[in-house]
């Protein structure tokens, strides 16, 4: 089916939020999801921070992967422009990705601290947590899958969609947990148990989107 790059990116964007939600279908970012979904304000801050970092690091890692790490032969095979360095360094991808994420988060932290103390105060505590958020590394690892054939625009759309999907899920969960405060949950289920089970019900609800758009 011939479609423009923009349509493809829009489809990927929607699919990443609804049908292929990074949290509910790929289980990425669960640790921070469970730890931080206790109240809406925290969830909102974490969701926004994750979205921002995911988009930026997905684009950054895309440039690094296809500009440096991939070998010229593989790039030609996938119909991409030749990389700057012709050497197959893709086995270092994980290491380079996590370093670029850690470096980017550090940089953002310093920039925000310098220019917007208010934003730093609100967002600052989440930034160190983001480095070890599997959702962000997950997006970078998933986007270089040769079967997906993402171009730059698609990568940006995938990063943005995944981040917003995480934001949606964590905010929904914060709302549910606020109601749960007044519910009579069995003692052994409180905390981790009930949160995981509710997430399962949410995942079931999101399965209703199956077939609407596909990645």
């Amino acid at each position, binding site marked *: 089916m011939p479609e423009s790059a923009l349509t493809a990116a829009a489809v990927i964007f929607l699919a990443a939020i609804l049908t292929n939600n990074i949290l*509910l*279908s*790929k*289980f*990425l*970012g*669960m*640790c921070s999801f*469970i*730890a931080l979904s206790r109240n809406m304000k925290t969830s909102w801050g974490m969701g926004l921070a994750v979205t921002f970092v995911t988009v930026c690091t997905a684009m950054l890692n895309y440039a690094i992967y296809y500009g440096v790490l991939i070998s010229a032969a593989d790039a030609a095979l996938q119909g991409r422009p030749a990389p700057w360095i012709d050497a197959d360094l893709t*086995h*270092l991808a*994980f*290491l380079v990705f*996590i*370093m670029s994420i*850690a470096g980017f988060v550090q940089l953002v932290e310093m920039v925000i601290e310098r220019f917007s103390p208010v934003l730093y105060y609100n967002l600052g505590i989440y930034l*160190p947590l983001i*480095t*070890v*958020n*599997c959702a*962000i*590394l*997950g997006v970078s*690892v*998933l986007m270089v*899958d040769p079967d997906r054939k993402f171009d730059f625009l698609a990568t940006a759309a995938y990063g943005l969609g995944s981040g917003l999907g995480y934001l949606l899920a964590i905010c929904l969960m914060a709302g549910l947990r606020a109601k749960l405060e007044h519910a009579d949950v*069995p*003692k*052994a*289920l409180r905390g*981790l*148990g*009930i949160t*995981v*089970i509710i*997430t*399962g*019900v949410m*995942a*079931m609800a999101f*399965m209703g989107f199956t077939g609407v758009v596909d990645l």
Partner: protein
Amino acid sequence: MTAVPVGGQESLLKPVTDGITCDNPVLCQALGICSALAVTGFVSTTAVMGIALLFVASLSCFVVSLLRNVTPHRVRLIVEMLVISVLVIVVHLFLQAYWYDMSSALGPYVALIITNCLILGRCEAFALRNGPVRSALDGFGSAMGYALVLLAISLIREPLGHGTVLGVQVMPEAWLPMHLVSGPPGAFLAMGLVVWLVRTIWPEEEPTEHPEAR
């Protein structure tokens, strides 16, 4: 120092048993849940993931502990990440070279061992303050606790979702695979049930032993 008479052997083993029982990373500290849910569709992928995590956790705790006196405090996170990612790359390349099917079945989740908070958590909380051998055993114990919980979840999910255990048919021929259990919702629900079961039998105040640790 307290005067508790503890034999050398016992005190060495304590981190291991703690990791499996009262400090179990998945059930008590809610760490490492991402991959706990993702790979438990089949018993075989779960076992490989567990072994990979045992390897990475023990060795990274060992190395981080060796480096603990020469690592400046400010850059310790980066150093820990570097150590962990190198070990994960080793596992990834090994699987790609010798067991390609398993490598594709695990997909991105091998790479995501890097961000498994369990390992970083043990490095931060234990390996930075203790000797290399104790740290390695502590990492091993935590990873073992993690692996056992995952095996329990996968032993629920594979028979119900596919009718098999380790690829061998265990359910009656007429068994209809439950797609809900093999899909994402089943992962969350099975995990919730295991947590519920364990915490009912051993309430949080005095968790002594897990059913899988018998």
